């Protein structure tokens, strides 16, 4: 029991740290995914915007869903939400607390992706190069509208033959990248200020309710873990009894059928106790065959009554 106590104390103190660790790993994974992803803008008028915005918004949704899936507390929260009240009534404050803590952790990786994308700038350049006003840039000012669209769409592809000789594409790129980075830093600043305010101002409102909600959400988590551990322990003991019972009933059957009267207990060597009365090749074969063809019923109450 001491060992279990130690394990549960570890879980209790570290449930938060395990969740924070997973959160951090996902954020790192999102940065790694961005750097290893081979961004190649299609440089075609209709496709640029879809591609650029798609790369900016679809992976954050994926990372958010991953954050929810990998978080153990989301299952705990759902079970608590959907369970029938029974003898224990439900506390909505606990469910709200769990929900908000899960959402906060799941939002970290998508925000990291979003910010890294904006600070890098490729997505925005790809998406909005076709929306630039050609009159503002010298190289695109004197061409027809359609051609201007085509040229602007090719700006993100520096190696394209049309772009190699055109110096205005650098101007467009710099302009868009500047906007992209400004947007990225602003969003980062706003989010950090919001997080700072939320953490500082929270004790000013409903601190007692918060403490209660946190305590009971921890409790639900630990209770579920202990229940699972107890079930494992129980199934192991159940299996042990069931097998012993099976060997015993085989020994009885063999005794009935073979008319041998073995001397029980007198001077039996320690090693023979483990033989449980099965001392013959045929007996062993019969035991194994019976184990497969007729597994014993899941009822060890008879073993106790003996």
């Amino acid at each position, binding site marked *: 029991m001491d060992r279990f106590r130690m394990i549960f104390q570890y879980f209790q103190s570290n449930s938060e740290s395990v969740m924070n660790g997973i959160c951090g790993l996902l954020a790192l994974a999102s940065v790694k995914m961005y750097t290893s*992803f*081979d961004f*190649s*803008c*299609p*440089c*075609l008028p209709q*496709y640029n915007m879809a*591609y650029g915005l*798609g*790369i900016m918004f*679809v*992976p954050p949704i*994926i990372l958010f*869903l991953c954050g*929810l*899936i990998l978080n153990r507390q*989301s299952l705990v929260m*759902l*079970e608590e*939400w*959907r369970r029938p009240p029974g003898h224990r009534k439900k506390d909505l404050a606990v469910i709200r607390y769990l929900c908000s803590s899960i959402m906060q952790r799941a939002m970290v990786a998508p925000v990291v992706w979003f910010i890294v994308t904006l600070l890098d700038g490729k997505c925005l350049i790809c998406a909005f190069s076709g929306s630039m006003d050609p009159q503002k840039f010298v190289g695109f000012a004197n061409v027809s509208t359609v051609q201007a669209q085509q040229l602007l769409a090719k700006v993100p*592809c520096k*190696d*394209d*033959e049309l772009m190699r000789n055109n110096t205005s594409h650098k101007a467009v790129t710099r302009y868009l990248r500047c906007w992209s980075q400004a947007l990225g830093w602003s969003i980062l600043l706003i989010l950090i200020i919001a997080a700072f305010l939320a953490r500082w101002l929270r004790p000013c409102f409903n601190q007692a309710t918060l403490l209660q909600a946190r305590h009971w959400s921890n409790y639900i988590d630990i209770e579920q873990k202990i229940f699972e*551990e107890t*079930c*494992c*322990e129980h*199934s*192991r003991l159940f*299996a*042990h009894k*069931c*097998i012993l019972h099976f060997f015993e009933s085989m020994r009885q059957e063999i005794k009935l059928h073979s008319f041998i009267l073995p*001397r029980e207990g*007198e*001077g*039996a*060597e320690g*090693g*023979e106790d*483990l*033989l*449980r009365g*099965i*001392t*013959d*090749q045929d007996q*062993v074969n019969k035991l*194994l065959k019976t*184990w*497969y*063809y*007729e*597994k*014993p*019923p*899941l009822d060890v109450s008879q073993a106790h009554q003996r």
Partner: protein
Amino acid sequence: MDKFRMIFQFFQSNQESFMNGICGIMALASTQMYSAFDFNCPCLPHYNLAYGLGILLLPPFILFLLGFVLNNNISMLAEEWRRPQGQRGKDPAVLRYMFCSMAQRAMIAPAVWVSVTLLDGKCITCAFCTSVPVETLGNASHPRLSQGEIQRVLARIPCKEIYNGQQLIANEVAIRYLRCISQALGWCFVLLMTTLAFLVRSLRPCFSQAAFLKSRYWSHYIDIERKLFDETCAEHARSFAKVCIQQFFEGMSTDLVAARCHLPRKAPASAGEATEKLLGITDQGTMNMALKSWHRCKPPLHLHPPALPTGNGWAGEGQPPMHPSAPRKETAAYYSWV
């Protein structure tokens, strides 16, 4: 038994993490396999599609089967499925639970392969380069070629060094277009898989939570019961072998003493345990005979209580205290019965 209990608890609590670990290793192995694989598009009209789609779809199928093979629980599932009913009923919910959890884990590595392939873009570029819309992306003013010629030219798009259709459609334009489509498909596939996983995981507590707890408990139980039974059989086999061999040596010793017709030398009382372990064989010739007999004529798989001092050859009294006297009384009855 305590040691076994600790080991079983370790396996039980870590069964899930062990399976998740194998799952993660296979996912990493699939990305490594993809990067190590030398993709060579054939650049011929009809072969491109077959090659590209083959590389996209065949390795995931292999990885899926491998995921099942590497899972220890597959034999447990098969055994539970095929066993005769006997005295214990079968619960199809438990079988479904076991199959679903194995299938979910086996799906991860193939999904990773397909995502990596689509996000990289080489397969789709190779497979669909002949379907590029030349009218919108290429030069409309190019002199007309026959359909077959156009197909042959387009099929060479992935192979930049032999591409000769720069006037028809620029190589970079076509590759960028195809890669964009491929990456869009890849991200959509990943989004779809993640959404499915999320729905499966989050809808389960809303429906049939009690049935789920039951299935999970009994599937763990079947696993533990199987392991415990194997351990018990191993213990039994060990004891069986020990007693069988002990009886073999005693039998040899008895035979030799009977053959030589002289009294065994009494071992001094102080030799104790070491003498007991010699099992009555104390010289080279006897040992050689014992070994030869073990090889040529193994004893039957039938244990009997240890040998008694009967009239033939044993002095009976004054024996070294190797064998307890009480069980020996049965031997005469056994021999005569046999």
